[in-house]
């Protein structure tokens, strides 16, 4: 009975992994297809679709735009979230619970609604759509994330170290730069990279809030309109690779912290 039970567990694990990894496996496998359609039977492997994608000026422009928007919006979100977390962790502010709630609120709202609201605002204010109007939206969705991660990482030991630095004559900026930020380095890095991936992968805000220069997910979206093709597989696999590398970095950073 127990043995059958054990076996059943491993079978379930294998099936679940099959289900979870199947689409990504198919995506990556048929990016190497030596033919016009990314469906069985598999012929190849060939790198022609990767060469094709890397030579595509629009996709590469989208890639550059995505890197730019993701890094700038992650940095802004991290800066704002860091300051807010410092303010709320260090000082007793009236209505602190409400403040935290307001800062976290965008996390519980659909991206579609955030995008629609911003689009209405831009229309009313006469702001033309660009990469930066989408970047503003990405900061809105990533600010709560950065704030929550950093706020959770600020324990009493941090406050004690800050007080010691202040007693030794350090100014406020020096305390933040030489004590707070280095002690929070793993959390800061993890938050930045997470915010980066969220912006990098985000579609609907970028779709509604950009016009002429667009990000990579939007470019891929228009590529998909013409049906399935190994080109979409190749660029999709590249996008996936970037996210996986970023996540691995976060994992390593987090792992180092737990080992310490």
């Amino acid at each position, binding site marked *: 009975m127990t043995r059958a039970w054990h076996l059943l567990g491993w079978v379930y694990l294998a099936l679940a992994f099959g289900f979870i990894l199947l689409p990504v496996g198919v995506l990556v496998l048929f990016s190497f297809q030596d033919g016009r359609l990314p469906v069985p039977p598999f012929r190849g492997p060939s790198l022609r679709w990767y060469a094709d994608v890397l030579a595509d000026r629009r996709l590469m422009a989208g890639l550059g735009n995505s890197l730019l928007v993701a890094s700038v919006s992650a940095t802004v979100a991290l800066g704002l979230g860091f300051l807010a977390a410092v303010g709320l962790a260090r000082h007793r502010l009236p209505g602190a619970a409400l403040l935290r709630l307001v800062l976290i609120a965008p996390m519980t709202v659909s991206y579609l609604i955030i995008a629609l609201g911003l689009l209405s605002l831009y229309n009313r204010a006469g702001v033309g759509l660009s990469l930066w109007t989408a970047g503003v939206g990405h900061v809105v969705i990533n600010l709560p994330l950065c704030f929550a991660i950093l706020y959770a990482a600020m324990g009493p030991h941090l406050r004690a170290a800050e007080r010691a630095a202040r007693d030794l004559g350090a100014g406020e900026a020096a305390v933040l730069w030489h004590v707070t930020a280095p002690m929070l380095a793993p959390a800061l890095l993890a938050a930045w990279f997470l915010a980066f991936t969220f912006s990098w992968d985000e579609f609907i805000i970028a779709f509604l809030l950009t016009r002429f220069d667009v990000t990579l997910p939007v470019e891929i979206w228009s590529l998909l309109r013409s049906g399935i093709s190994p080109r979409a597989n190749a660029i999709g696999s590249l996008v996936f690779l970037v996210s996986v590398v970023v996540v691995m970095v976060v*994992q390593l950073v987090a792992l180092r912290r737990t080992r310490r």
Partner: protein
Amino acid sequence: MSPKAGTRQGWGFVAPALLWTAAFFVAPFALMVWLSLSRLEGRTVVPGPGLDNYIRFFTEPSLLRGLVVSLEITAVVTVVSVALAYPLAAIIAFRVPRRWQRVVLVLAILPFWTSYVVRSYAWLLVLGQGGAVNAALMGLGITEAPLQLSATRFATVTGFVHFFVMLLTLTIYANLVQLSPNYARAAADLGAGRVATFVHVILPLTLPGVVTGAFLTFVLCMGDYITPQILGGNRELTLPQLIMMQLGRRGDFPMASAMAVILMAVVSLAYLACARWLRVERI
């Protein structure tokens, strides 16, 4: 530092984030609510306040149907995802040796990090007419002709379930490993079998985590545009698809805003329904 100066400094730190949230989240939201009470006549927005859009939404079957479709899909997806993710999380937490758990977990949620668009496209490849599933079915001689799997509700649900099984496995696993093994041991000492221990001890203790994950599933699934748009075909449309249609075809911002407010209201109702178990700070 005097307490007053300290408070002032604290506000100084919080102010930039607060201003950003006010300008680019609260203000747009308020504008959207105000727009939803206006009307579109021809190409101009006639300021309200009036409930025209809301009345139209609930009286026009094609629009109301979107809400029903969204709710049906979301309900199925939430139930199926929890049912599939719980055993997976439990196996990883209790069967897999400790030092391998982290690796297994990272692998189990690897596709989580593909972008929404790419993930849905990958399912299109798997489920399409000449796709991997149909090729396997015909290769094994189970079916003669390819099955219509893509451009159906089944495809939309599969795409969603795939994503949310990963998300829920993560949240439920986090819950299970926090449990002290003493609970199960005590139950066994008191004569409870494997099933009784699970039903009366483990499940109630992990319920908050399950409900939090299920709520997150509900919110994200209700609001998603991509998965049904790529996988669902055009025979039935979800609420987010209808919202995008209002924007695209006529530029009807008032109607789109009203539908967004309705979407928010549904999510808020779901929040109230499970607020007892929810701890938002854990999300």
